[in-house]
């Protein structure tokens, strides 16, 4: 009966979460929560819990809260109260219904975007606290099914799309062949030892957007870069284990990625236009492995393209004519401060750049990030509805003339695409790579 009411309230039933809940015992819940609260978490959890003055000033930061009629339960501190707050208070003695609710909150009502840090006077990092809740859910085996499936793929193949070793290299050869129609001598150098640049992408690129690899190859060629891509696991820089709470597996994936680069003795890792992958390599995964900074310098595509375009390493034939607006992905804006470089790059490539408001480190999240999009179809409507403010922000930019949204992140693309569709915003979405490829002087 209780189960029934909860299901109706959330109206989302996730098979993975339900299956996990069915296996739980009160002792197991308590011991896992105790383990995370007392042994894995430390200064930040305790200090944040003690410091929060319940002022609610963080509320306006969160797109979930603002979009959902200012529901107090969705404010950052409200989410803490509903999850880890109770776990701490009850010392882990909580019910399975509570765990279901906590998993829903942590996996589908917070993108770990850390915007609330900029609004809370104390800089309380609710994203971090929700990561801890996810850690607990993972250890309890209560993870949304689609997300867990992706995590399984990463455990088996070290990529998130169940791509076999030969399929990966095949895709690279296929894209090389395609590109040769345009640039006859172009190569996608696989496993080239001693190259300057190790280029890594996320699993969905070879699976769904292989032309991005082709475009990148043309850009590298035009810039005369000495680059390579690895032929064996370690090529996928994405990381859903980081989001599911499987820190152990996250560490192994990151290690494979760094080791693939180290084996090829490259000078630096350049990664495609993905935000969460950057977070996993630069912020979370490296920390887990004990590196304060990544052991090999990691450069996000926006940073890399900025250098190529703004320092004249590739030439622009004719600037992009349609007015664009720029969406700052949280993982490279609040994660790496790339907002100014992204703007310089946009201005160098496009005739007209319209600012959406708020922007830069205050931009509104796409509501796909933090792995929410990877929770799959059951959560799609929820994530789109819980971000009506984003639609409004896009409509405003459109009213000012913008026709194209540049979003240098795969997750953002997924999220924004759904929002644009659902709310009928009718704007086009592009990566920087798309624009550069379109406006650059192509190599002969």
């Amino acid at each position, binding site marked *: 009966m209780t189960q029934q009411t909860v299901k109706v309230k959330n109206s989302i039933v996730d098979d993975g979460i339900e299956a996990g809940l069915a296996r739980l015992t009160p002792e197991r819940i308590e011991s896992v929560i105790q383990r995370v609260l007392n042994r894995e*978490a430390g200064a930040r959890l305790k200090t944040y819990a003690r*410091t*929060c003055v319940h002022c609610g000033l963080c509320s*306006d930061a969160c797109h979930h*809260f603002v979009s959902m009629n200012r529901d107090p339960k969705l404010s950052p501190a409200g989410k803490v109260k509903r999850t880890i707050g109770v776990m701490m208070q009850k010392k882990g003695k909580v019910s399975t219904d509570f765990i279901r609710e906590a998993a829903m909150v942590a996996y589908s009502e917070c993108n770990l975007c850390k915007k609330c840090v900029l609004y809370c*006077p*104390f*800089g309380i990092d609710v994203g971090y606290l929700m990561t801890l809740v996810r850690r607990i859910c993972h250890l309890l085996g209560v993870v949304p099914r689609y997300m867990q499936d992706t995590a399984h793929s990463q455990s088996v193949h070290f990529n998130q799309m169940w791509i076999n070793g030969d399929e990966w290299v095949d895709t690279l050869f296929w894209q090389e062949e395609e590109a040769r129609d345009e640039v006859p001598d172009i190569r996608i150098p696989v496993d080239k030892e001693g190259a300057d640049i190790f280029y890594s992408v996320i699993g969905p690129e070879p699976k769904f957007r292989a032309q991005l690899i082709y475009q990148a190859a043309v850009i590298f060629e035009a810039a005369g870069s000495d680059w390579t891509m690895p032929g064996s696991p370690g090529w996928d820089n994405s990381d859903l284990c980081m989001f599911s709470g499987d820190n152990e597996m996250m560490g192994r994936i990151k290690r494979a990625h760094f080791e693939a680069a180290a084996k090829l003795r490259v000078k630096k890792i350049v990664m495609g236009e993905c935000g969460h992958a950057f977070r996993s390599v630069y912020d979370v995964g490296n920390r887990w492995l004990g590196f304060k900074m990544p052991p090999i310098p990691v450069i996000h595509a926006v940073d890399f393209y900025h250098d190529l375009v703004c320092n004249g390493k590739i030439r622009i034939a004719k600037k992009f004519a349609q007015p664009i607006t720029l969406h700052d992905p949280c993982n490279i804006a609040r994660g790496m401060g790339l907002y100014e470089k992204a703007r310089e790059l946009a201005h160098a490539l496009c005739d007209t750049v319209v600012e959406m408001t708020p922007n830069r480190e205050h931009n509104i999240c796409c509501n796909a990030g933090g792995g929410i999009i990877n929770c799959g179809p059951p959560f799609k409507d929820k994530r789109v509805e819980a971000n009506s403010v984003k639609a409004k922000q896009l409509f405003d930019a459109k009213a000012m003339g913008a026709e194209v949204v540049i979003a240098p992140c795969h997750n953002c693309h997924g999220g924004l695409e759904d929002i644009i569709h659902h709310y009928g915003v009718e704007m086009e979405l592009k990566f920087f790579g798309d624009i550069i490829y379109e406006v650059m002087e192509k190599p002969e």
Partner: protein
Amino acid sequence: MTLQTLYAIIAGPLAVLAITGFVLGCVYRIVMAVRQTASDRMVIEYFHPRYALRSIFRWLTPYATVNMRRHPIMTLVTFIFHLGMVVMPFFIFAHMLMVYEAFGLSWPTLPDVFVEWMSWAVLLALVFFLGRRLILPEVRYLTTPSDYLILFMVALPFFTGIWAYKGWWAAEWVTLLHMLSGEVLLVAIPFTRLGHMVLFFMTRGYMGSEFGGIRHARDW
């Protein structure tokens, strides 16, 4: 017990006890927070004095952050309240006099009229905070009974302070209550949410470091 002996106890050993409790409590809070970094090593690794101070100063400057500008009245009230609560007590003539009588130390103080007005402002600020807790749904949802108790505990020394200064009914007794409630408040700081007074510098300092030093982004 006569008024005099009570006064002697409250102004003497109890005051010493309260101040000691406050100082030791704060030290304990800081030591505990630092010790807990044993299982959260990045906090120390990422700590960066320059960025920590950058963030702390930013958040101590009125209207210097986006969210402060979004809530202009709340910001105004908060700053006046904190000045009245944290800074003003040091510059009240009667307070200075007690230190002077005990240790012979003296320093310039604020005019009494100003202190009275500031105290009223602090009380009004508390009413404002209470109103927020009762009216704004997102704040009411977070509020626990202890939050109301804290508002009351902070109000008491200011209310009794004005009462005693004005010499209203039974002012001598209210003076004792004023001192006692101030002492209770002092000890309560490190052991309740009022501990944000010290922890602010740690949480904000850490976030400033992480944003400035690692994320190369502003945290305001």
